[in-house]
């Protein structure tokens, strides 16, 4: 548990935040200038808050009242910076081992395992300057993990990469983040990244926390889904793998009382999995469709219909265990006479369900 309550003033800008991040990933989103970097610097010990306290699993890292300010090296917080900050005069191997050599007593994951998970085995003898941006970030992540941290900070680790590199590195990040049981603060301005990786969300604006909590609820509460990412808007739900269809290469997951089929054989029965339903891929029907190619038909109750400006309407459907959102036209909403309380069927093509 990372417990933070700090304030810091620098010129006209002031940061004033209080939150607790449990083990697992908590995303911190906000526009540039919202105070994200200041927050990271304060927690890491690179900038001193004016007032407040920072505790990590019972260890006091900073307490203005008691005059405690643990130096950076003793905080044991692994930081992955936006610009990777690999040491240019050292090989990839030496970079990875930099922290471990200095904290032999700290519990850290096995070197070989981290190297394998991050897929950097073939780079070990190279120097950072000969690596691609994505490779550099992977090494930087490994370096932080191997230093035996008690918490991890990611400061916009993908912001400097192009879309292709991001797509290359995200699966590695996901895999690693599932494995570690540390508090992880993941700072980003990309909501999609936060959704994919985090369970908790903190929304910063002008140095204050304007919303915090479980990720989907917080996004909804803060009204973050703007017109710009309307088409990527959607929800992430927790499901359990229930069965496998080896013949057709499908996996069936239990979600509430429903069975959701997704393409590909993933995991083993009983494993948890996160599914992502994009609002534009969810359709609404008043009757269950007969003879349709759509494999996933989830009965539910309309919770709300939000009509915005323009031709769109957003319908939330409680299917038991999850609330899906469907992006439909206003005309469709009117013709189906959708209103809260109405029993409907949410239709999702299997190929449109992705693992989040």
């Amino acid at each position, binding site marked *: 548990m990372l417990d933070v309550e700090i304030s810091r003033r620098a010129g006209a800008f002031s940061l004033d935040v209080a939150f607790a991040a449990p083990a697992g990933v908590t995303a911190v989103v906000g526009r540039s200038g919202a105070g994200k970097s200041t927050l990271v610097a304060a927690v890491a010990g690179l900038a001193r808050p004016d007032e407040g306290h920072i505790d990590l699993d019972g260890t006091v890292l900073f307490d203005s009242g008691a005059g405690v300010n643990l130096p950076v090296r003793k905080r044991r917080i692994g930081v992955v910076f936006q610009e990777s*900050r690999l040491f*240019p005069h050292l090989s990839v191997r030496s970079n990875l081992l930099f922290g471990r050599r200095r904290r032999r007593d700290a519990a850290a994951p096995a070197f070989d395992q981290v190297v394998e998970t991050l897929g950097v085995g073939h780079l070990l003898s190279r120097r950072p300057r000969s690596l691609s941006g994505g490779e550099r970030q992977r090494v930087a992540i490994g370096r932080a993990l191997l*230093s035996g941290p008690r918490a991890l900070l990611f400061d916009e680790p993908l912001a400097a990469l192009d879309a292709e590199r991001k797509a290359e590195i995200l699966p590695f990040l996901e895999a690693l983040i599932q494995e570690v049981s540390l508090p992880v603060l993941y700072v980003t301005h990309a909501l999609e990244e936060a959704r994919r990786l985090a369970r908790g969300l903190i929304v910063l604006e002008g140095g204050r926390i304007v919303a915090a909590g479980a990720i989907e609820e917080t996004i909804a509460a803060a009204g973050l889904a703007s017109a710009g990412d309307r088409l990527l808007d959607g929800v992430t739900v927790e499901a359990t793998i229930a069965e496998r269809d080896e013949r057709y290469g499908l996996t069936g997951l239990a979600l509430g009382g429903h069975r959701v089929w997704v393409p590909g054989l993933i995991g083993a029965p009983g494993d948890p999995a996160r599914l992502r339903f994009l609002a534009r891929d969810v359709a609404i029907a008043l009757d269950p469709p007969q003879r349709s190619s759509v494999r996933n038909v989830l009965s539910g109750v309309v919770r709300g219909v939000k009509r915005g400006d323009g031709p769109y309407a957003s319908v939330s459907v409680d299917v038991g265990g999850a609330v899906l959102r469907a992006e439909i036209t206003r005309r469709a909403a009117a013709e189906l006479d959708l209103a809260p309380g109405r029993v409907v069927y949410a239709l999702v093509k299997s190929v449109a369900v992705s693992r989040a």
Partner: protein
Amino acid sequence: MASLPFAVLVALALARGRFPGKALLDGLVHLPLVLPPVVTGYLLLIGFGRRGPIGEALEACCGVVFSFRWTGAALAAGIMGFPLMVRAIRLSLEAVDRRLEDAAATLGASRTGVLFAVTLPLALPGVLAGAVLAFAKALGEFGATITFVSNIPGETRTLPAAIYTLTQTPGGDAAAGKLVLIAIALSLAALIASELLARRLASRIAG
């Protein structure tokens, strides 16, 4: 060469430190650069001579004598080259990316750990350049040396002093010419060696 660790220390203090008297230290270090060498030599003679306050103390405690010995010539050369060395090292230290040092600290490196594992390796080309500059300066040092330790054959006769002596001696031209060639060869060799090393280091370090 012995002055290198001191130069690194002073350069660190000047590049990174914040302390009262920093400007004074800065001025003091640069003094030999702007003073006439003869004045520096005279001050050394007063300070480090057998009757001088520092010279006397050093002889009493460690038996080290500077005046009119080769050690004195080395001291004079070191002092004259010192500002050049400090300047070059300081510049390269200031050019080291502080964010890398921060990153090292988050990985558990102590301040000295950061210095030896990150800062100094990255500043190495500058340290090397400083050392070569100081070496060249020391090789050519004449005024302070001759004032401080005179020109004693086999003890304090440095290369420039020897050349000067030979040119003042009838028939010494040939010998002087040989020494001049040696001086040129030494300087060139130092310059080329440092250039090669610096290039290799730079290509290793370039991020």
